[in-house]
């Protein structure tokens, strides 16, 4: 019986290995057109940024009053997406959720792509990017921007460590098994595996480090988005004057993170033929998780708007009217219905938790998450304490220019490019952890 199990185990392990390494083997890569499109979008964005560097932020639609625009909304979105790394490699791992194992690597990759883009986009938003170094030289710890700089770099460091450390055994497998790949890849796998032999002692050290990091990353991940919310709540603006902003941002981020994983799952499983691992059961679990996270976000949404909407105090009341019934109302209600209510309604049913409906719902959630951040940033700036008067008409409205849109799109393309590059280089599903899970299953049937 035990011998049977061992043979079965070996067979399974070999199958896991060959399946999960398949997409790394050399041969014609699928989806090169996708990369060309991404590079094209990035080039257009770079041209737009060149124009912005040359003429100044005047090429954007931002003016006094609406002094932050899509760049900041986009920054908040990317920070939100980056929280997904901690959700899978920490929260679900520490709570010993067995089905989340195949998703840890992809979530860490997405987290790193998103955090890099958040940093890029915040530099794009600066009026004087040439003085970025002043943040380090003249930084004042009182300023929430400095808190954000500290916490983002911390989170990026921990995320890279989490990704890399859990990769070492897999890099060793790549080093041993992938013999016919390009020379630089061979070199990368050999150096990256830092002489991993898979001894019990090495595994023990690895477990200890990844466990410690998984614990550390939770407060850092919560802090990264809470501090981002403080960029708003520490200002003297009626629309942002809320103690609810921290949990509101974090819960929205976790929801968007789950959605981005579902989208990634859908495309990875079809592109790399991994339907067996990213199966419908996994989609169903993710659907349930998304419903839970949506409900939490709904709760904080109600908290965010009910108090001010009930009291209708001064400018804050005007801001609420603008969102509920004014020029932002179509946007606001579409986001709330399609980005928040619809996912809950669709995904509570089993038919809604099939891959295709989930893909559509998740894309709606992501679009909603982006537009929601736009609605958090811009309408509040347009409702200051003293009325906006005695200025040019262009200061009253904010319609992003093509430069802003193309830079924003380029940031998305850049994020996708980083993710695609890493997926093509690394086993997208952690092989050794899958093997371990398989062993656990066989030993404890």
């Amino acid at each position, binding site marked *: 019986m035990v011998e049977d199990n061992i043979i079965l185990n070996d067979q399974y392990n070999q199958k896991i290995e060959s399946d999960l390494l398949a997409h790394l083997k050399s041969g014609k890569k699928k989806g090169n057109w996708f990369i060309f499109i991404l590079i094209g979008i990035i080039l257009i964005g770079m041209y737009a940024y060149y124009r912005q560097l040359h*003429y*100044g*932020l*005047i090429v*954007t639609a*931002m*003016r*006094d*009053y609406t*002094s*932050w625009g899509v760049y900041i909304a986009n920054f908040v979105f990317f920070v939100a997406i980056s929280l997904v790394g901690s959700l899978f490699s920490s929260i679900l791992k520490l709570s010993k959720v067995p089905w989340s194992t195949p998703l840890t690597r992809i979530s860490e990759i997405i987290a790193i792509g998103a955090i890099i883009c958040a940093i890029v986009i915040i530099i794009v*938003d*600066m*009026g*004087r990017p040439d*003085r*970025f170094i*002043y*943040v380090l*030289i*003249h*930084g*004042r710890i*009182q*300023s*929430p*921007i*400095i808190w954000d*700089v500290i916490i983002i770099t911390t989170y990026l460091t921990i995320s890279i460590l989490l990704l890399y450390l859990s990769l070492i055994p897999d890099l060793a497998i790549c080093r041993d098994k992938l013999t016919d790949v390009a020379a630089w890849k061979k070199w990368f796998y050999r150096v990256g595996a830092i002489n991993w032999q898979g001894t019990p002692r090495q595994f023990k050290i690895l477990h200890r480090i990844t466990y410690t990091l998984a614990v550390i990353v939770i407060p850092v991940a919560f802090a990264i988005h809470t501090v981002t919310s403080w*960029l*708003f709540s*520490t*200002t*003297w*603006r009626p629309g942002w004057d809320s103690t609810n902003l921290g949990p509101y941002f974090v819960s929205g981020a976790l929801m968007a993170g789950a959605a981005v994983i579902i989208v990634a799952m859908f495309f990875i499983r079809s592109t790399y033929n991994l339907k067996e691992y990213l199966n419908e059961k996994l989609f169903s679990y993710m659907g349930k998780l998304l419903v839970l996270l949506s409900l939490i976000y709904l709760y904080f949404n109600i908290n965010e708007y009910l108090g001010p909407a009930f009291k209708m105090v001064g400018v804050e009341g005007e801001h609420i009217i603008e969102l509920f019934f004014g020029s932002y109302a179509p946007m606001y209600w579409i986001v709330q219905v399609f980005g928040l209510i619809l996912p809950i309604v669709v995904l509570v049913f089993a038919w809604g938790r099939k891959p295709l409906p989930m893909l559509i719902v998740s894309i709606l959630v992501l679009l909603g998450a982006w537009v929601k951040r736009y609605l958090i940033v811009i309408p509040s*700036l347009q409702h*200051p*304490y*003293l*009325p*906006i*008067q*005695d*200025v*040019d*008409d262009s200061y009253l409205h904010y319609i992003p220019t093509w430069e802003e849109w193309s830079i924003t799109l380029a940031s998305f393309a850049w994020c996708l490019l980083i993710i695609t590059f890493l997926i093509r280089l690394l086993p997208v599903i952690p092989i050794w952890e899958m093997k371990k899970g398989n062993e656990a299953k066989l030993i404890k049937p």
Partner: protein
Amino acid sequence: MAKNKADQRRNFLKSSLMLGASAITGTAFIQGCDSGALETEEKVKLLTTDGTMVEVNKSSLSKVPYQPISPKEARKGIPGKHFVMVVDLSLCRNARKCIKACDHHHQLTPDRPYIKVLRMQDNKSSAPYWMPKKCFHCDNPPCVKVCPVAATYKRSDGLVLIDNERCIGCRFCMAACPYSARVFNWGEPKNQDVKHPYSPETSIPSQVGTVEKCDFCPDMLRQNKVPHCITSCPNGALYFGDQNADSVTNGSETVRLSTLLKDKAGYRYHEELGTEPNVYYLPPVDRLFPFKETSEEKPS
């Protein structure tokens, strides 16, 4: 006793005005003594550096241009001063002369004025009025709190200034300022005297990608003069002065700050925000002019 105090006060004001006048003449120097000048010409007594008193013709004096001080020095305030402004809303009729003077002095284009005149109406039943708005130079300034690089700072004399050689253009201060006092150089600023040595005290030349705002004209204050908006107001609606000396002037009359605020029920905007502004407003009561909507409300 009370009369005595008032006399003392008057004497003090007189002497301080004299001091101011001597400081102005201090910046003048003798261009060259023309011995053949007419006897009838007005003479000015001057003290030379070696301590002797000389009498020269007024026409032979010329002004030395004021040299603005460096960004580093500009972080220190003028000792012993705490500057305040008082705006009498009953006297403003949106003549916009303050904006013009300010734009001229700070080399501003109409798309980024430091001063805005808002048409305010507290509620439907009360009458509308004009509210000249500049930087409030708060004692608890939100902009200074949030600045990541100390580009904007609070001085001992109450002024909040911006060092545009330090500013990274994150615009956090603009989001933080509840009075929307700040303007940003979205594009390359036009009409700039780029040869002018930069000082946060003059705010010229402006730089693309940096924030700026009303600075209370510290270069004028250093010369014991008042900001340009004060002297340009045709209605005397703007008062400026030193809170420590308890006196403010609108260019034609000098009054005691505490008495003015007490008698006319001075107030500050959004006191509840805890920003402690240094710009006081006197309510728009007993107005000299009926409120008239002006077509000049927006810059062309």
